[in-house]
């Protein structure tokens, strides 16, 4: 039983990471209809930047803060320079561009930091805490807390602030938002910036447990995708809950179903995507999209 709880908590920690990245995917998808393929690589890039700062002597939290700021600016910059020129054209073109971005950033990271994995000492020690006979890793708890706090902050931004209102309006009805005075192009840049921030959080939280190397977030991107699909592609809450559910599910399956082990968890995630899309395409929280004839 103790092992089960440990696995659940551990799964929630991974799930927090998947959920953060999934939320980033949903954010961009909701506002522009684009599935940002580069979201994972950008998250890895953020993790590398954080690592570099720490390597140069910065303490973790200041490095993390700086990374967040840089990621926001980077995300907004990418939207303004690469996406904006073609965002009025077919969505497929934009998506292929994000694939190109995925490739380019992946190559860039290998170029700068090399392909070998790096040790990333997170802010939390891996020492266990014992609660009632069950050993929890401090790191797992820390990851859960930080991912939930970030998600909460983003939610507050969207639901309670004027900026958030503008962001939501620009996503729902950009033409009308402009008539109301909302600077839609700027909202899109902010949206991408926030998505990059969520990605940075996911990347930095993932780095201690996975090896920090250029391909680190590729599997996480797929898990995030599975989480977003599970939650309903345009539902922010769904993305987060989907992430948590998926994290726990994958951990339990990986532990208790032996031939799956650690390696085939991705295959399980892919099966989840497929299953959801076949049985209930709208996911847990999404709206069934009515296809206009």
């Amino acid at each position, binding site marked *: 039983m103790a092992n089960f709880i440990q696995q659940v908590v551990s799964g929630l920690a991974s799930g927090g990471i998947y959920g953060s990245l999934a939320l980033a995917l949903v954010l961009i998808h909701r506002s522009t209809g684009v599935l940002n393929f580069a979201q994972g690589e950008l998250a890895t890039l953020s993790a590398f930047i954080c690592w570099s700062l720490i390597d140069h002597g910065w303490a973790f939290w200041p490095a993390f803060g700086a990374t967040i700021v840089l990621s926001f600016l980077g995300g907004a910059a990418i939207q303004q320079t690469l996406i904006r020129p*073609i965002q009025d054209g077919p969505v497929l073109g934009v998506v292929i561009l994000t694939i190109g971005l995925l*490739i*380019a950033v992946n190559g*860039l990271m*290998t170029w700068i930091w090399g392909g070998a994995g790096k040790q990333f000492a997170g802010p939390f020690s891996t020492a266990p805490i014992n609660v009632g006979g069950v050993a929890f890793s401090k790191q797992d708890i820390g990851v859960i807390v930080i991912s939930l706090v970030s998600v909460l902050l983003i939610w507050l931004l969207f639901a309670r602030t004027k900026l958030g209102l503008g962001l939501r309006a620009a996503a729902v009805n950009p033409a009308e938002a402009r008539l109301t005075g909302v600077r839609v192009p700027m909202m899109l840049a902010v949206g991408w910036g926030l998505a990059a921030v969520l990605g940075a959080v996911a990347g930095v939280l993932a780095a201690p447990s996975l090896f920090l190397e250029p391909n680190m977030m590729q599997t996480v991107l797929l898990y995030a995708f599975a989480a977003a699909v599970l939650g309903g592609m345009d539902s922010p809450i769904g993305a987060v809950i989907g992430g948590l559910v998926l994290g726990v599910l994958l951990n339990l399956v990986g532990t208790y179903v032996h031939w799956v082990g650690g390696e085939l968890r991705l295959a399980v995630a892919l099966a989840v995507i497929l299953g959801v899309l076949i049985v209930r395409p709208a996911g847990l929280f999404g709206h069934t999209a009515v296809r206009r004839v």
Partner: protein
Amino acid sequence: MRVKLIAFGLGVLALIVLPFPLSDFHTVQLATVGAYFIAILGLDVLTGNSGQISLGHGAFMAVGGYTTAILMSDHGVRDLWTIPIAALVAGAIGVLVGIPALRLSGFYLALATFGIAVVLPTILKKFDGLTGGSTGITLFGKPTQTGHGFQVTILGRHLTNNEWLYALTWTIGVVLFVVVWLLLDSRFGRSLRAVRDSELAAAASGVNRSTYKVAAFGVSAAFAGVGGSLLAINVAYVSPDTFPIQLSLYLLVGAVVGFYGSIWGAIIGALLIQFLPDLVHQVPHIDSKQAGPTTFFFGAVLIVLMLLLPFLLRLGALLTNRGYSRAQ
């Protein structure tokens, strides 16, 4: 049409003539280009014509490559005969993937195929009894290799091993090009493009969308399988590192660069995949052992291409006077 025939004729002529002035090493490089060429042809069928994006074609190449390797090394099958078998195996798996793929549209399919490409090396390593795990399978010097150990003679001329590989790869390449050309020009191709352009209209016209989409996946995978098989034969070695995620990504870049999914551009894409790494390493300060810069430039090429695409399409429309046929 006549232009296409002339272009085709010139292309075949060039293929026949090229090995003579070129060194042996360059010849085998061009042979590898041929393998990529065939894989990209497959991708063109899928992405260019049926509108389904695949980021996992490296995986189908791997299926073909490993089928060839396993048959040659464990079952004593002559390399030539493994090629059609590789095509069948890859094609079958393509069909199996194509069926659930029906449920996925556009980018979701791309993500799912991306997933396949990412998971592939892990699977290859896990089933190491069959695949030789991380060390892979060496084909060099095996008796099942044609052209190695004994000389191949064609029309009274002795071919070196590399020339043989070139001849093999490109003969198959040209044949498959003709096949795909005919296929896309036929009713099959038209129905495929109808499905791509408007699923609803195609359904209303009585085209069974599912059959065509799955068939496209199967054909596309079979082509990639042949490409992978030829790659294995060319390089005489397969391992999980022969088919990394980057390969799948490069294949897509190659297909897009090649006139956005047209089979007439496949050669450009194939040349790009083979020679961009070399070009990149010509740039000063870039160490030829580094893989990062190459990948970066592939990505940059794709980004720049997509940024220029609207402009290029307009230019193309002006030149060919055909309006926005590819406006999608």
